[in-house]
């Protein structure tokens, strides 16, 4: 397959990833970082799968080994060659067909085949069986399909052959070249098939009885770890049940019809793909993975054929943008016809009603997802509501594109692995929820709608940790099950239907018939069982298509006849006459059925609309009530908030006042402290002056003392000299002098005592002053604390 070319290429082009898809410039660096991890993971998982498949092959499939598979492939390759030649004779368009699928070198199994292919360059491989070792998985998965489609199952057990296609091919051959061609195929492979048929029928019992559950669990585990690159295409086919779905030559017939339509254009209105789809497909083909190395001219032709064939196969869908990406993706992994059947499985089954004209189911899913979001992430949704962002704005594109172009490719593949395995849309919801879980915390910080959406888009776009994503999705949201989703879908569907009905009433003529069709389509939860039912009737493929479209009310008699004639030509069964008669009978029956179905459909529609209207009115009024209630609550909340705000403001003002008061107090205290400090200073000075004066006084006292002593000595000397005569006359003076002396002494004593006193008083004073400011500071501090 195309892997070959893009494996080579990605080493050359750093702007593309390992799958050949363009990388956004801002992601190249992160991709480089993750490329190593991917490689490691890839190694691990391919070992695991290899081991698993070997075990399966040993235990379950002793007969059909890979050796035989190789042979089968080889044979098919030659068969395909013949086919190309034939087809190139048939129509110009298909002659240009070449293989876009040229075998990966990684596949050891196919290596040989492809070596031989390289020599024959013009070969086409439009259909290939998947390797037998995967058939156990295939059987397990297709048993799921069969349970919903009893008819085909029944037919198989009767015929005892698991391959209806081969049985058809085996039917006794006519003389035409094509039939001859078919014979080669059958002859060459019949031995293998006989073997395979034997083992497989035996195995269906075995698997369904005991092996199913452990096997399924094991596969589930492996799938969550990812499917190895080189197995992915085949494993996906096994999951979707391509082999069970496939009807031999159905695809080729669709293409042939398309080609013949192209030749006579007068039939434009009756059958075939409406012009608008063709034009849309043409517009979209170059816009599908632009620049991808595998989508060269041949690849694009394949893509065109695939989309046209699908549009013809299911007119209720036709072509819807997004399918171009799916088809392109599948073509990268598998041959063209395999891709067709895989696409049929995905769009008809997994995504029934999703891509139809009104896209009802996709709208329903959005409502369901929103409800799940509200349930799981109330805070996030509240925030998004507050920003005015609707969840569906973002999740809508995720769902419609099944994450293609929304998250990195490695993650896309991993999500598809699980989704295709599970066979429903649960993984879609789980992945979206996982993304919300991963990025919700970041989203809550956004401040406006634009930022929120941009952030989510870019975060989702850089979800390179695919294992984390898949594990979060699978393990984190176990409560999201198919049953729960169905329940929610039935709850939300009426609302969507009412809107759709209103739209189609707005005079949109082109929708009339199809509107009804797709409504019925979406209500019928097993539309494919219908197809399968018709497929199982003999005469098969295109009849099934016509039948289904007649049920859908879109075809007319012309188309049916046209289709039949082409069909019978191509099948060229032996008893043409008988066949024609039988077909005519069948046709009458079908026409009757169609009429009945149309009538019934109309009845159903009116009934439905009645129901829907009532239901919706009730729901609407309930919703209005709810909304009103919410509004009241919100208003209440707002009022409360306002009250709180004013209260807060008051508190704030009071606080401010208090603060101002304390500030004032603090300032005055500081001023006091400064004043006191100044006083202390002054006192200190005075004290020093006093000390100085005391010291001087002391000196003077000393001088006075010495003078006093000198005077005393002199006095005593004088009294000795004038003892007798002058004693009476001089009596007065000594007393006066002693009086002076005693005064001097007394003063001296007093002076000596005084300094200490002064000091003490000074000290006590200063300590007092020292204490004062600190205490006042303490006060202010206390006040500040109080504030």
């Amino acid at each position, binding site marked *: 397959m195309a892997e070959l070319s893009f494996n080579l290429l990605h080493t050359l082009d750093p702007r593309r990833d390992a799958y050949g898809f363009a990388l*956004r410039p*801002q992601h190249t660096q992160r991709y480089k970082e993750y490329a190593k991890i991917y490689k490691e993971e890839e190694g691990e998982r391919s070992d695991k799968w290899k081991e698993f498949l070997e075990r399966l092959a040993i235990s379950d499939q002793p007969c059909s080994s890979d050796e035989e598979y190789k042979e089968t492939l080889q044979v098919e390759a030659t068969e395909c060659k013949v086919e190309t030649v034939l087809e190139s004779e048939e129509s110009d368009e298909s002659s240009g067909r070449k293989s876009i699928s040229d075998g990966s070198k990684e596949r050891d199994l196919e290596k040989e085949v492809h070596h031989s292919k390289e020599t024959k360059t013009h070969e086409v491989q439009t259909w290939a069986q998947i390797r037998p070792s995967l058939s156990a998985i295939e059987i397990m998965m297709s048993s799921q399909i069969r349970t919903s489609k009893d008819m085909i199952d029944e037919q198989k057990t009767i015929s005892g052959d698991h391959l209806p296609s081969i049985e058809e091919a085996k039917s006794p051959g006519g003389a035409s070249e094509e039939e001859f061609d078919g014979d080669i195929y059958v002859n060459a492979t019949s031995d293998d098939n006989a073997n395979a048929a034997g083992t497989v029928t035996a195995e269906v019992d075995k698997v369904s009885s005991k092996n199913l559950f452990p096997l399924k669990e094991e596969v589930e585990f492996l799938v969550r770890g990812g499917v190895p690159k080189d197995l992915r295409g085949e494993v996906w086919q096994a999951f979707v049940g391509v082999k069970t779905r496939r009807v031999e030559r159905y695809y080729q017939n669709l293409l042939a019809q398309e080609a013949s339509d192209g030749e006579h254009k007068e039939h434009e209105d009756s059958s075939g793909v409406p012009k*608008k789809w063709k034009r*849309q497909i043409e*517009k*979209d083909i*170059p*816009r*599908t*993975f*632009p*620049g991808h190395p595998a989508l060269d001219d041949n690849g694009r032709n394949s893509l065109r054929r695939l989309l046209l064939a699908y549009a013809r196969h299911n007119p209720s869908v036709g072509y*819807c*943008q*997004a399918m*171009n*990406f799916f088809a392109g993706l599948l073509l990268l992994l598998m041959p063209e016809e395999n891709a067709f059947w895989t696409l049929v499985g995905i769009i008809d089954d997994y995504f029934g009603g999703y*891509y*139809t*004209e*009104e*896209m009802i189911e*996709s*709208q329903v899913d959005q409502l369901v997802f929103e409800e799940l979001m509200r349930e799981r992430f109330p805070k996030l949704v509240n925030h998004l509501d*507050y*920003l*005015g962002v*609707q969840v*569906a*704005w*973002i999740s*809508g*594109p*995720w*769902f*419609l*594109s099944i994450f*293609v*172009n929304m998250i990195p490719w490695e993650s896309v593949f991993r999500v598809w692995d699980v989704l295709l395995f599970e066979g429903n849309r649960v993984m879609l919801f789980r992945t979206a929820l996982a993304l919300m879980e991963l990025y919700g915390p970041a989203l809550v910080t956004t*401040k*406006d*709608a*634009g*930022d929120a*959406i*941009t952030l989510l*888009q*870019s975060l989702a*776009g*850089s979800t390179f940790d695919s294992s984390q994503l898949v594990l979060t999705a699978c393990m984190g949201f176990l409560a999201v099950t198919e049953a729960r989703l169905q329940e929610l879908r039935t709850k939300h569907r009426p609302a969507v239907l009412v809107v*759709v009905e209103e*739209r189609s009433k*707005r005079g949109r003529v082109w929708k009339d018939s199809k509107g009804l069709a797709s409504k019925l389509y979406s209500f019928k939860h097993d539309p494919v069982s219908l197809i399968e039912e018709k497929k199982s009737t003999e005469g098969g493929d295109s009849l099934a298509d016509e039948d289904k479209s007649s049920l859908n009310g879109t075809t007319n008699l012309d188309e049916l006849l046209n289709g039949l004639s082409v069909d019978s030509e191509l099948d060229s069964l032996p008893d043409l006459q008988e066949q024609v008669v039988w077909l005519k009978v069948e046709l009458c029956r079908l026409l009757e059925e169609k009429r009945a179905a149309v009538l019934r459909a109309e009845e159903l529609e009116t009934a439905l609309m009645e129901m829907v209207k009532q239901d919706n009115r009730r729901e609407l009024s309930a919703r209005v009530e709810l909304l009103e209630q919410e509004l009241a609550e919100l208003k209440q909340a*707002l009022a409360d908030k306002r009250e709180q*705000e004013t209260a807060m403001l008051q508190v704030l003002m009071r606080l401010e006042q208090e603060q101002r008061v304390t500030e004032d107090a603090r300032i005055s205290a500081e001023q006091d402290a400064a004043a006191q400090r100044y006083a202390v200073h002054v006192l200190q000075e005075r004290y020093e002056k006093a000390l100085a004066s005391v010291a001087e006084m002391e000196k003077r006292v000393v001088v006075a003392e010495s003078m006093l002593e000198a005077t005393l000595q002199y006095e005593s000397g004088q009294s000795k000299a004038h003892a007798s005569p002058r004693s009476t006359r001089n009596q007065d003076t000594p007393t006066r002098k002693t009086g002076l002396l005693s005064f001097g002494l007394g003063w001296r004593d007093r002076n000596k005592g005084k300094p200490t006193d002064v000091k003490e008083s000074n000290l006590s004073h200063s300590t007092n002053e020292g204490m004062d400011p600190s205490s006042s500071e303490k006060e202010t501090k206390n006040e500040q604390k109080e504030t």
Partner: protein
Amino acid sequence: MGCSSSLPDRSSGQLAGLNSENGGVSDAKNLRVKLVLLGDSGVGKSCIVLRFVRGQFDPTSKVTVGASFLSQTIALQDSTTVKFEIWDTAGQERYAALAPLYYRGAAVAVVVYDITSPESFAKAQYWVKELQKHGSPDIVMALVGNKADLNEKREVPVQDGIDYAEKNGMFFIETSAKTADNINQLFEEIAKRLPRPASS
């Protein structure tokens, strides 16, 4: 899709957030505008947005599935800024079923057609009618004829566009995302026509 150039507007207080409920205006100087692009498939809606937001043109751009989002802020001469929150919708007819999700509450709708395709012009008229019925009553609508660089292949005369726009009270311009002709003018003209909130 990550690199929208958004100004750090509205970084102010928490109490200011309450009035920004519906994708419209935030304050007199910094407007936020929800804009939706509608029109037939392949007329170049995504290219116009890419040219306006990133200044790039990719002739092989991808099909838009559902819708995609980008935002861009421009400054006007009167020193107001306008942040466009642009929803680029899918063009195929059936995606019209999802369009209301995106044009509901939009202040601006840009309806695009391809001047080389009369069908796309008819489709544009369908969108104008749809918006008149179901869009916001005061929605600003612009009619854009894109691919003006392909003048030699023109099939929709300029006058037709002008007449239709005039009749429906729309602003009309012909652009080319490829040559960047009139792309910025388109958005500037839209910005001028926006209703301004009463300055506080």
